[in-house]
């Protein structure tokens, strides 16, 4: 980890104007999609377009103003990308709501609820930026946040508040709200890993022996990786949640590799993952089913835990083709959970490959910006944290989009910012706030030259004279 970012003469500009311009475009994407949904389904611009657009604009402007005040040097592209994805997600949810309503299903307020969650997300985003003025203060909470993360992962097993929805035991119910503590846990675990690795990376990186071009780590250093592997397997077996298990283990592996620069850890982690996957395939029915559906989706189309969902999604995306059927003119309601895990198939069907590529590119840019922040950040903790947050988004997007398109076995995870899901949305807004905070610190010219108040200077001048 070199100090390349602090070269003299390399001054980052603030770029808040560029951010504002991109945010206007992002709002055009979100509100345009909402209008297109109304036009496609009802033949007219939706009546509440002004109210909806106004609310969305207010949220985005609030976030932008907060960035201007407390993080003026932050990256200009992250917030617009997130705003565009969130706006597009809201419009697609609205589109599904209208169809579910027409078909007489009772749940039809996904978009409204998602907008509420987005409001909470933006409030937390602004709060994080205002309260956390220096990300390095999080390093003090390394073990606290690690413990809190593990506790949050255990919460769903507690008798009263824990709950099981759709077969996965990852929910808690408090005061009528259901929440996935795992989404918050992943942010806490990134902080914990970053704090731990920045202190222990030398021991993990230097000791070990070399076997055929690869430095294998020492046996006694395997402790943390084995512990993390155990936690992921526990999530898999106890919570029946393949996606989160993959996410946590992958996250730890990425951060370990980045911290130590040793490919040996990837070999060890890869072997552990392969062993775990084999064991899961052999002993866990759910996992074996997922594999079978992935390899032979058509064979299980009519069965009851079957591949109907995946096949319908593939049909939808195939029917959508290059430019899609148009918002409101497809049949995304044929896919169960089209509003959460499978929201990308809805987009693929109605807006086509063109829009899916744009969305994948947006995620790619978010990850690129996060890794760039890691590159220019001056302190090891900030670097590792940015890498971890990038890894969360990258892994999650890969696992979900790969699953929906049939590239890898399907695992349940939400598509960040697009899918319906309050916990995920709120947690991801906090992730963006943390990234902006690190990038503000990294891009700020150092040390800052504060303008000197003349009167104060005079006072000090008098004092100096007195002293001499």
């Amino acid at each position, binding site marked *: 980890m070199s100090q390349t970012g*602090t070269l*003299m*003469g390399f001054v980052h500009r603030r770029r808040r104007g*560029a951010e504002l311009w991109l945010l206007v*475009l992002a709002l055009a994407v979100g509100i345009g999609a909402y209008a297109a949904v109304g036009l496609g389904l009802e033949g007219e611009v939706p009546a509440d377009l002004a109210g909806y657009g106004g609310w969305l604009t207010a949220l985005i402007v609030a976030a932008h103003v907060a960035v201007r005040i407390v993080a003026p040097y932050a990256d200009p592209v992250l917030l617009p990308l997130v705003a565009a994805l969130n706006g597009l997600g809201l419009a697609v949810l609205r589109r599904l709501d209208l169809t579910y309503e027409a078909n007489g299903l009772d749940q039809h307020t996904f978009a409204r609820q998602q907008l509420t969650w987005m409001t909470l997300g933006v409030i937390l985003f602004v709060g994080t930026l205002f309260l956390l003025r220096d990300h390095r203060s999080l390093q003090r909470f390394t073990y606290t946040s690690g413990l809190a993360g593990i506790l949050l992962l255990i919460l769903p097993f507690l008798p009263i508040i824990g709950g099981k929805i759709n077969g996965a035991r990852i929910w808690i119910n408090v005061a009528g709200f259901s929440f996935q503590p795992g989404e918050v846990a992943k942010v806490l675990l990134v902080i914990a890993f970053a704090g731990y690795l920045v202190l222990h990376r030398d021991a993990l990186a230097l000791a070990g022996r070399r076997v055929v071009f690869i430095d294998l780590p020492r046996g006694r250093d395997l402790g943390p990786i084995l512990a993390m592997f155990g936690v992921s397997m526990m999530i898999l077996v106890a919570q029946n949640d393949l996606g989160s298990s993959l996410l946590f283990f992958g996250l730890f592996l990425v951060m370990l590799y980045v911290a130590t620069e040793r490919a040996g850890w990837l070999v060890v982690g890869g072997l552990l993952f392969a062993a775990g996957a084999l064991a899961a395939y052999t002993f866990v029915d759910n996992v074996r089913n997922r594999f079978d559906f992935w390899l032979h989706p058509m064979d299980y189309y009519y069965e009851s835990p079957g591949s109907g969902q995946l096949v319908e999604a593939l049909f939808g995306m195939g029917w959508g083709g290059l430019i899609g059927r*148009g918002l409101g003119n497809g049949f995304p309601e044929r896919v169960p959970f089209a509003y959460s895990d499978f929201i990308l198939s809805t987009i693929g069907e109605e807006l086509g490959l063109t829009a899916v590529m744009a969305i994948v590119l947006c995620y790619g840019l978010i990850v690129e910006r996060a890794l760039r922040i890691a590159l220019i950040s001056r302190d090891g903790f900030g670097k590792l944290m940015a890498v971890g947050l990038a890894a969360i988004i990258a892994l999650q997007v890969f696992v979900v989009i790969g699953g929906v398109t049939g590239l890898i076995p399907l695992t349940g995870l939400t598509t960040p910012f697009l899918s319906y899901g309050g916990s995920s949305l709120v947690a991801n807004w906090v992730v963006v706030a943390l990234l902006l905070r690190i990038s503000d610190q990294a891009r700020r010219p150092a*040390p800052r030259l504060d303008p000197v108040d003349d009167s104060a200077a005079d006072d000090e001048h008098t004092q100096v004279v007195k002293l*001499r």
Partner: protein
Amino acid sequence: MSELTLFLIRMAFLAILWIFVLSAISVIRSDMFGARVPEAARGAAAKQSERKPRRPRRGAPTHLLVVEGDNAGTRAELADAPLLIGRGSDAAIKLDDDYVSTRHARVAASGDEWFVEDLGSTNGTYVGSVRITQPTTIAVGVQVRVGKTILELRK
């Protein structure tokens, strides 16, 4: 709503989506290549920020002087701050000392105080006898050691 209108709406939306993505990429591009502020512009900005000429105060340091080492006697005016110390050709105080890194340390002002900050050098920067790990305040006459060279702020 005719088929053609719907088609045009769809195309318009896809166009907006891609305009957004491409604008984001172009901002990233300008961020990457436009980040280096040209020397002249930086000078102008510095001049602008010092519109109110500060009266030179007695007791305030005016230059940084090499007091010991191969380059003893070399000086740099603090008016040009921030000053880079190192073996590199872009350093304000260029030292021919084998124990000094290319970009070794930086001297900069914050308000009325002067700071020295180590830039990740191999052999470290010492204020007095203490190796510094973060920007450290230095006063007139305090000895800053980089490699085998000792620097001081002078009036």
